């Protein structure tokens, strides 16, 4: 059942012992693989008691500033009812999404007061994110309204109350404001007519949730769809009146683990940790049987058998994920030709050659193949999900590469799609045109890589790409993609500073800051926006606060085009130098020498490995680059104040 998080393995007998060991290290000296072991321990179907213990470990981790590899997040939780059980469930679950969360809980029944009082503990807590958990029973939506107008007033008032909490708290929260949808009542009042009668509690909650969705669509908040989760596990399991009557618990505490995972994965997605690539095993995962033994005619796939239909459903889900930007890869123990044959020749296959970005079919172990896939796509191992029906293969991969997500699967293949989907590995908090086309980009990139091998000469290869680099200011149209890049880029990211969409908007409007987005097209297609730079326009020197780039366009000399732009814009404003900083993280070692390569001088180095750089502009000359540059951000560079 989904409530038991079937995609996660059971906690196992060594859970408490390993937890105690990690706790001792968290309070003393963490081992080299500490973070990896924390995430691995949390990646199991922990119950509410185990989650409470994991939450304590998370708190110990948040208190230290020397542990790299987990996002440290102070999360405010406020809203309706008794929320005290939610915090530990969220913090314990968030560890499996690489977030160490410390929850600051609002006082019981004082959400509006605390959010709007500038002196409240919540406002002064230094929150990174906040979660607002509302309940229809305390928003006045559990009693019917007498007509459509009264219903509209009731819904508007409930929405206003949530808005007041969010907007009151927002100035005191560094990052995202997450708002839960409201769970509708299970009990019918009119019956089927509840849906038609605007005054019914059911219809009013539905109307409120639609307003919350509109608000999230406009970028105001991030939605956590608890109402949908409640429907998935069943409203009857979710809503236990005895717990509400006794302690104002908003839902059955038996569902704390599945709730905690939803919020934990939402936090992970906001921090850019949603997975990007689904790697598929073949035999008994995408079709029934073993292609090497059964041949094309013998595998079960498609019309004619229930088993065949089940495997088609797995392929269908993979295709759907691909169409929303998840990259597909294959990793199978098979002869390559045999493995390819269904993709090329089976009439019922939905997945075809074109859909797979990287295809690893050989007799090498799967862990090595997964590493090869990550390398070929230039993404981290923690961006992969591996789907395999074989428990032994799953266990081997989990042991060898804990960073790869490997869902447990039930015995019945008919439930594979549901289990994979419910796990939420690819949870989205935004969706852009670039996302939709991402899978295609990776395929085009693979073609480009093949082209490079053919020409052999880097310069003539780059010139042959007919690259056009468009530099422009950040504006409302480009803002969502810019914010997405800012929050998802981990490797080519000099300072890993995260900005919410609202904060990006503030940067756009700030005359003391210069923000640009860079787009790259070439002969194979449009890569979209692939680089973002934000600089503070000081009088004498411009200080680069954010410089990031998509790894898709490494080796194209785009960063040199960006530098040329920054130098020109800074000169235009009268500045004499550019100042840059490298702040090391667990993932950005690739840019440790970025500024050195661009000709900056090292000014100072910090004990944490950070480096400050300076480039004097008086004698710096821009190089010739193998691309056409269209710069629309020079004319709008503001003179320094």
């Amino acid at each position, binding site marked *: 059942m989904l409530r038991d998080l079937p995609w996660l393995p059971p906690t196992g007998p060594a859970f408490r012992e390993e937890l105690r060991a990690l706790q001792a290290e968290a309070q003393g000296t963490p081992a080299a693989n500490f973070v990896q072991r924390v995430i691995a321990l949390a990646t199991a179907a922990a*119950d*509410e*008691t185990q989650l*409470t*213990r994991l939450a304590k470990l998370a708190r110990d981790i948040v208190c230290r500033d020397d542990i790299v590899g987990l996002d440290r997040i102070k999360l405010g939780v406020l809203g309706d009812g008794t929320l*005290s*059980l939610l915090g530990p469930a969220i913090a314990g679950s968030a560890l499996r999404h690489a977030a160490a969360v410390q929850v600051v809980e609002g006082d019981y029944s004082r959400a509006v007061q605390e959010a709007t009082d500038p002196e409240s503990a919540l406002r002064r807590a230094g929150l990174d994110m906040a979660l607002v958990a509302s309940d229809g029973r305390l928003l006045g939506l559990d009693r019917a309204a007498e007509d459509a107008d009264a219903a509209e007033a009731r819904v508007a008032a409930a929405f206003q109350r949530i808005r007041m909490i969010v907007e009151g708290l927002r100035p005191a929260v560094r990052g995202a404001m997450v708002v839960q949808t409201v769970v509708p009542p299970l009990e019918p009042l009119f019956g089927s007519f509840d849906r038609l009668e605007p005054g019914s509690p059911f219809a009013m909650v539905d109307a409120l949730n639609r307003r919350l969705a509109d608000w999230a669509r406009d970028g105001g908040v991030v939605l956590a769809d608890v109402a949908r989760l409640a429907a998935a596990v069943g409203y009857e399991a979710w809503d236990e009146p*005895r*717990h509400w*009557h*006794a*302690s104002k*618990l908003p839902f059955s*505490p*038996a569902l704390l683990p599945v709730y905690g995972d939803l919020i934990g994965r939402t936090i992970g997605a906001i921090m850019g940790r949603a997975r990007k690539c689904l790697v598929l095993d073949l035999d008994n995962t995408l079709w029934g049987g073993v292609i090497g033994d059964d041949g094309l005619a013998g595998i079960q796939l498609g019309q004619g058998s229930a088993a065949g239909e089940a495997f088609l459903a797995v392929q269908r889900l993979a295709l759907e994920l691909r169409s929303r930007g998840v990259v597909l890869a294959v990793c199978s123990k098979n002869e390559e030709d045999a493995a390819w044959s269904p993709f090329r020749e089976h009439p019922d296959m939905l997945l075809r050659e074109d859909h797979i970005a990287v295809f690893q079919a050989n007799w090498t172990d799967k862990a090595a193949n997964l590493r090869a896939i990550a390398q070929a796509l230039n993404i981290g191992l923690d961006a992969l999900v591996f789907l395999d029906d074989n428990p032994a293969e799953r266990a081997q991969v989990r042991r060898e590469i804990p960073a790869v997500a490997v869902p447990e699967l039930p015995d019945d293949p008919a439930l594979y799609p549901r289990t994979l989907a419910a796990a939420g590995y690819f949870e989205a908090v935004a969706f852009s045109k670039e996302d939709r086309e991402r899978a295609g980009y990776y395929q085009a990139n693979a073609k480009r890589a093949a082209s490079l091998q053919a020409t052999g000469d880097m310069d003539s290869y780059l010139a042959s790409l007919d690259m056009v680099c468009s530099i422009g200011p950040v504006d409302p149209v480009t803002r969502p993609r810019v914010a997405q890049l800012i929050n998802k880029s981990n490797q080519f990211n000099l300072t890993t500073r995260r900005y919410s969409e609202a904060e990006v908007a503030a940067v756009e409007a700030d005359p003391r800051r210069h923000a640009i987005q860079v787009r790259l097209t070439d002969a194979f297609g449009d890569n979209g926006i692939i680089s973002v730079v934000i600089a503070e326009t000081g009088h004498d020197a411009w200080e680069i606060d954010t410089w990031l780039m998509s790894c898709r366009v490494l080796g194209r000399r785009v960063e040199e085009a960006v530098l040329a732009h920054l130098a020109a814009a800074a000169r235009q404003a009268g500045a004499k130098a550019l100042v840059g900083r490298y702040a090391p993280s667990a993932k950005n070692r690739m840019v440790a020498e970025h500024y050195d390569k661009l000709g900056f001088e090292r000014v100072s180095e910090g004990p944490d490995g950070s480096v400050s750089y300076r480039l004097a502009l008086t004698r710096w000359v821009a190089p010739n680059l193998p691309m056409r540059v269209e710069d629309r951000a020079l004319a709008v560079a503001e003179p320094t104040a």
Partner: protein
Amino acid sequence: MGAVSLSRDEILREITEIMRDVFDEDDLQVSPETSAEDVEEWDSLSHVRLIVAIERKFGFKFKNSEIEGLKNVGDLVNTVATKVG
């Protein structure tokens, strides 16, 4: 729960294990006289977790009227016994 009924001793043993887990105290000594006052970690929140864990272990759900009157572990064992004994 299965057709086999449990003795009060067996129930007390199971509940002791659960309490040790929920209150995170491996050596917790539990007798019928034990109450929330005797266990530092036993507050209203961990009490909810205790109830959830007992319900999951024995496969039934308490009514509020059954929980409200409980004063000590002995009362708890007796109530569980009426459900599975």
